[in-house]
């Protein structure tokens, strides 16, 4: 039986095409988080509104006396609005350490000394969080739509609400994009995942509270623009075709969200570097 040489051997196998590192990073991040039981429990719990709505759709479609429970566009709008709470917790749990932990352990210079770009790295980190958020927003919303079709046994609901699928998709993606960009940008500002989590929670909660106070004090609805979450709510209302209370602010709200996303992109551009240059 030959003795196996455990010394260094030259590698003679295949190499992958470049440009797939973002997926390697995302896949590893997803698997690592799925190994945490508490996170799995949170993910499962985030599907509890789906179960409630599924029962509602079943009753509305099959029992005549419960017809008031039948699906409307508002059912899906309400569902996505309810999921904001889970989006908040999952973003903090799965997102706070995405870059902060790497900065703490100097992993950025390991990553960026490999044949990957900063965009691969940031993209992989964002995708890690985005997958989980899509799994608790867009996926259950579309499954509710599917259940509505199965329970009612006809395409009538789809045909009478042609914009529902694009609206669910657009609203979900906006919700996910805002959470992912904000959390990843805040994570890149710190070497501590706890501090990054506090920054995010502070931004969401403090901005909303401040908006309430200022709106009450001045009577101006324009203060909604200082809270990204409430601004998103206003835009989501418009996406689902519901007349927003503050329709005049819609264009400003869209611009404000775009501004937040651009600011996050700028932060990431400046913070994700293998070498911190202090001039």
């Amino acid at each position, binding site marked *: 039986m030959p003795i196996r040489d455990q010394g260094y051997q030259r*590698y*003679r196998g*295949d190499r992958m*095409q470049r440009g797939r590192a973002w997926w390697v990073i995302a896949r590893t991040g997803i698997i*690592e988080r799925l190994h945490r039981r508490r996170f799995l429990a949170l993910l499962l719990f985030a599907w509890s509104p789906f179960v409630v709505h599924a029962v509602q759709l079943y009753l509305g479609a099959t029992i005549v006396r419960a017809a008031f429970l039948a699906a409307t566009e508002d059912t899906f709008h309400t569902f996505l609005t309810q999921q904001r709470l889970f989006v908040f917790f999952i973003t903090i749990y799965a997102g706070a350490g995405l870059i902060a932990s790497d900065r703490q352990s100097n992993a950025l210079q390991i990553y960026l*000394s490999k044949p990957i*770009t900063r965009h691969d790295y940031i993209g992989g980190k964002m995708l890690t969080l985005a997958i989980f958020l899509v799994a608790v927003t867009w996926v259950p919303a579309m499954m509710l739509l599917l259940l509505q079709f199965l329970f009612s046994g006809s395409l009538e609901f789809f045909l009478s609400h042609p914009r529902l699928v694009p609206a669910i998709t657009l609203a979900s993606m906006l919700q996910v994009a805002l959470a992912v960009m904000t959390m990843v940008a805040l994570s890149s500002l710190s070497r501590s995942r706890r501090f990054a989590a506090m920054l995010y929670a502070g931004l969401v909660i403090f901005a909303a509270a401040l908006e309430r106070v200022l709106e009450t004090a001045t009577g101006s609805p324009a203060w909604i623009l200082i809270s990204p979450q409430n601004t998103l709510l206003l835009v989501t209302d418009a996406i689902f075709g519901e007349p927003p209370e503050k329709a005049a602010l819609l264009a400003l709200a869209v611009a404000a969200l775009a501004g937040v996303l651009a600011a996050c992109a700028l932060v990431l551009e400046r913070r994700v570097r293998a*070498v911190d*240059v202090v*001039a």
Partner: protein
Amino acid sequence: MTRSDGSDRVDRVDAPVVLEHVTVKYGRHEALRDVSVEFPNGAIGLLGPNGAGKSTLIKTLLGLLPPANGRMRVLGCDVNESPLAVRARVGYVPESDAHIPGMTAVSFVAYCGELAGLPRANAMQRAHEVLFYVGLGEARYRNVETYSTGMKQRIKLAQALVHDPELLFLDEPTNGMDPKGRDEMLALVRDIATTKGITLILSSHLLPDVEFACDHVVVLHKGAVAAQGPIAALKRASGRVFELRVKGDEPRFAEAVRAEGLECHGEAGDVMRVYVPEDRSSQLLFQLAARHDVQVRHLRASVPSLEDVFARALGEEA
């Protein structure tokens, strides 16, 4: 870049790393000043005191820092134009403690292999092999965060080797290691360069490390190349070195020696090292001693060391 059997590996070039008039700035501060140097194949030591620009040079060669001026070629590729192609073929052992959190050693090294372009299964197989090679085979299922300093240095080497680079940059790889671990690490470094055919650039301020592991040396000082060449040749160029101890006015004697055009290093009360060029005689030292009324208590011809080369290159009191 698909390589099925390694046969399309680019032929070893004479100078795998070439810098031409490279200047790197941090704001207004010039970390590298118009550096032009060629690194040959083999093990090359990058020497210099703290702040000399060693780490900056390595990071610039990896494409992590853009130069303000100049061109760099690594393994035949222009670093400015194709940094990813360069990084696919080199390995980097960073100076500071660096790992990816929450991973076992084997997962970490396999992950690095995947990032460098190896298929998943191959990366895992390579990770096991490389971890055995660097001496972490028995500890490969432990979380990297539980490793000692020496083990962390080894795993940094493993992640740099997993994709089988043609060129390896090692930035202070023996930092924080105990003497035994340091010897083992240097033996690994030497083995990589001599028997595995991987060119390596070893950055260090520890002269014995470089002298043990390397054949060539590039000395950086204040962002510029102060000396370069084969260590043996640089030592020969030092002429003869004498260890000298005198009784009397040492500072005045040292000044007199320097006034004669000889280099003299050493602190008062300690052994002085005097460099006597080939065309001068050691008798001159006795004549100077007599002239300045000091007694020569000890005079011994010494073997020129890398420390002498370093001291002469830097032109400082050693």
